[in-house]
């Protein structure tokens, strides 16, 4: 309120000395009107300075003189010094929080890059090794027939690489609200059944609990991606194998899907941030579970852009988890209106408080 270079508190700031004025209007006639307006007859002011950094001025105004005496100068200087300590410690705390947030962001980015590199390297290893194998064979024996299986393996792994690159690009699409394109009538039941078959193995059995049909307006490819992501997670985070229950049912005009596994579960502390970009659970040992921390972020984007919601519950680490997807069967009428496009920041903040809801 008081400019640093004038009025009486400004003098304390400029001189870095405590100032006592028993008659402000006389000592600073230029601003008499302002002192009168605020009933400030007498003023005691001290600079607030920490480590030679001028932080501000502590000013005490009195309506009548003489409230303050020369002795009070020492007191106000002391109070100013105390204020400086408090302000400085607040600055330090803020700064420390900033540093921590930056470090956390840097760590997440680092983990992400390392995981992205690992995931890209696996199919790349197969492509490079297989191509070099074909090359070496052809050089040794130019007459040998083409190893069709070897070539097919290269094609398959190259497509896997392409898929990974697409997944990385989906992060940007999720942030821009551009994941969901064409919505058409889609029966979810065969999609769920087929996904269960696709992911079943010797170690993991998927049990679909579904109705006869459940048709809604969805982006088929994205729903497939959502199912694959959730079922893949169920396999990945159930390293000891086991049964995964996939239930699909209709309530009014809404499809509900739950995927329940008996895997490593989710610590309560991770639930609120589970769908954040790059976030990985505290019990997810990097050595056992490769991953980018993108799957659930993309799932959240797909569901949200269908006007639905996704949440997770877990009885705790080692006790499995359930993912619950809610998808309205019809596209909202205003879907194409620009006002519906959500800002990027809502991608994480709009997630309901999963933890509270769950526990």
């Amino acid at each position, binding site marked *: 309120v008081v400019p640093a270079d004038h009025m009486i508190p400004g003098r304390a700031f400029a001189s870095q000395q405590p100032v006592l004025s028993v008659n402000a209007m006389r000592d600073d006639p230029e601003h008499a009107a302002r002192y009168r307006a605020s009933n400030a007859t007498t003023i005691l002011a001290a600079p607030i300075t920490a480590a030679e950094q001028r932080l501000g001025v502590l000013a005490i105004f009195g309506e009548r003189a003489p409230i303050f005496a020369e002795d009070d100068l020492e007191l106000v200087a002391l109070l100013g010094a105390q204020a400086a300590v408090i302000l400085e410690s607040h600055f330090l705390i803020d700064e420390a929080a900033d540093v921590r947030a930056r470090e956390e962001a840097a760590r997440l980015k680092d983990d992400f890059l*390392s995981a992205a*590199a*690992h995931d890209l*390297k*696996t*199919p*790349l*290893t*197969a*492509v*490079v*090794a*297989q191509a*070099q*194998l074909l090359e*070496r*064979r052809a050089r040794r024996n130019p007459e040998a027939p083409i190893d069709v299986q*070897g070539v097919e*393996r290269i094609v*398959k*792994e190259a497509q896997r690489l392409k898929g990974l690159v697409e997944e990385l690009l989906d992060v940007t699409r999720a942030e821009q609200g551009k994941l969901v394109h064409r919505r058409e009538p889609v029966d979810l039941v065969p999609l769920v059944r087929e996904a269960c078959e696709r992911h079943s193995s010797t*170690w993991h059995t998927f049990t679909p609990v579904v109705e006869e049909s459940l048709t809604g307006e969805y982006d088929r490819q994205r729903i497939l991606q959502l199912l694959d992501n959730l079922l893949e997670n169920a396999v*990945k985070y159930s*390293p*000891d*194998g086991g049964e995964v229950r996939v239930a699909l049912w209709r309530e009014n005009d809404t499809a509900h899907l739950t995927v329940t596994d008996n895997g490593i579960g989710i610590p309560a502390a991770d639930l609120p941030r589970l769908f954040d970009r790059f976030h990985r659970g505290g019990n997810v040992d990097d*050595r*056992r*579970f*490769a991953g980018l921390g993108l799957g659930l972020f993309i799932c959240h984007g797909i569901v949200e852009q269908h006007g639905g919601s996704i949440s997770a519950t877990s009885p705790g680490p080692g006790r499995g988890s359930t993912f619950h997807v809610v998808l309205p069967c019809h596209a909202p009428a205003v879907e194409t209106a620009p006002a519906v496009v959500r800002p990027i920041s809502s991608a994480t903040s709009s997630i309901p408080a999963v933890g509270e809801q769950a526990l």
Partner: protein
Amino acid sequence: VTEHPILVVDDDPSILRTVAEILEMEEYAVETAANGAEALQAVDRVHPWLVLLDMRMPVLDGWGFVRALQGRGVTLPIVVMTAARDARRWAEEVGAADYVAKPFELSDLLAAVERVRDGAAG
């Protein structure tokens, strides 16, 4: 060199198949396993002279496999194959003879195998 095979352990079927074929082309006998648990069974069954070991695997990972071997008092040369940035450290952790970082050149893989073979022979 020996009648015993090289045991290749990797949860990625393409890499497993390709590495096996590379070794077979060089006339090594090869046995494969998709995880640490399968690898333990294979060790009992075929007594490999070398294990090419991926580290991050489901069911039983590379660390678990090596611990189980130690628990049985079995010592076997191991070459770690991993795409992890910490390849060297992980190899040291399990007392591996060598490691190859994925994606590897075919010649690097064969060189690592030959080093173990020649070391064992000499």
